[in-house]
């Protein structure tokens, strides 16, 4: 068995952009520690909201577009799996289209609620596109809008699932 370290996607993206003649992407680099909120109650008594960036939408909703899409979708956690869709420009969609749980893990989370590991799942999950070029727009527009929703719905914990 030969194990390799995690893929350095920043390095590989840089190399690829350079080889293709694109200007280098300026990755976000935070040096200061993030704020750290203490848990108010144990996980088994908490309400958890899922936020996923794999471009998931529900049949009947407007799909995402691929150019700096800052919009998000509210998806009921009771949406049947067959009504969930995946659209994205930056990752292989085949697994997510076969089983959305790989980037939008509602089924395993519901099981853990049943088992008493997690208190409950927020009735609404939030999805967006990811791959938004402007970190400023994410920080100043999308992030506060999502945080507002969680606060308004008295969410205890947030799980963020990129693709």
């Amino acid at each position, binding site marked *: 068995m*030969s194990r390799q370290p995690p893929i350095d996607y920043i390095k590989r993206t840089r190399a690829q952009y350079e080889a293709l003649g694109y200007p280098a992407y300026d990755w976000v680099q935070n040096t200061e520690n993030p704020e750290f909120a203490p848990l108010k109650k144990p996980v088994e008594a908490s309400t958890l909201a899922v936020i996923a960036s794999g471009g998931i939408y529900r049949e009947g909703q407007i799909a995402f577009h691929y150019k700096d899409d800052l919009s998000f979708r509210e*998806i009921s956690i009771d949406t049947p799996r067959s009504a969930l869709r995946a659209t994205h420009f930056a990752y292989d969609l085949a697994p997510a289209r076969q089983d959305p749980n790989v980037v939008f893990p509602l089924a395993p989370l519901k099981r853990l609620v049943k088992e008493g590991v997690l208190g409950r799942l927020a009735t609404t999950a939030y999805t967006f596109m990811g791959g938004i070029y402007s970190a400023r727009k994410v920080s100043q527009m999308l992030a506060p809008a999502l945080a507002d929703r969680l606060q308004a719905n008295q969410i205890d914990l947030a799980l963020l699932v990129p693709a």
Partner: protein
Amino acid sequence: MGLIAREIESRGIPTLCMSSAYSITEAVRPPRAVFLDFPLGHTAGRPEAAEEQREIMAMTLSQFAAATEPGSIVRLPFDWSERDDWKDAVMQVSGSGDAATTEDFRIDRFEVPQYQFEKDAQLADPVCPSCVFLSELEPR
């Protein structure tokens, strides 16, 4: 995701980021993160692997209470395959390293909705109250 986690956390709501891209997560430094060393597109597990998905999610949730250091990234104990050579081919520049022979992985960035199925376009509610569009004209 890390930027969003940081904002939510600043409102007093604990967050946990899943990740399959260690370097990106390390650079953004979200408050709490778990790392699953799977190819992109499998952040929460393999398709139709319900038991493994449950295990991954149970370990992930346990990090809400276990993480005590802001910015910590905990590696989940799952391997994609017996060998790690799937990593060799991911986003590699071709031998000669020039644009003519390097495959352009970037696909066109359309500004119109990209539906999985054609019929989704017809079924889409043009009003869509559950679709939230943010406008730059209304800075927050």
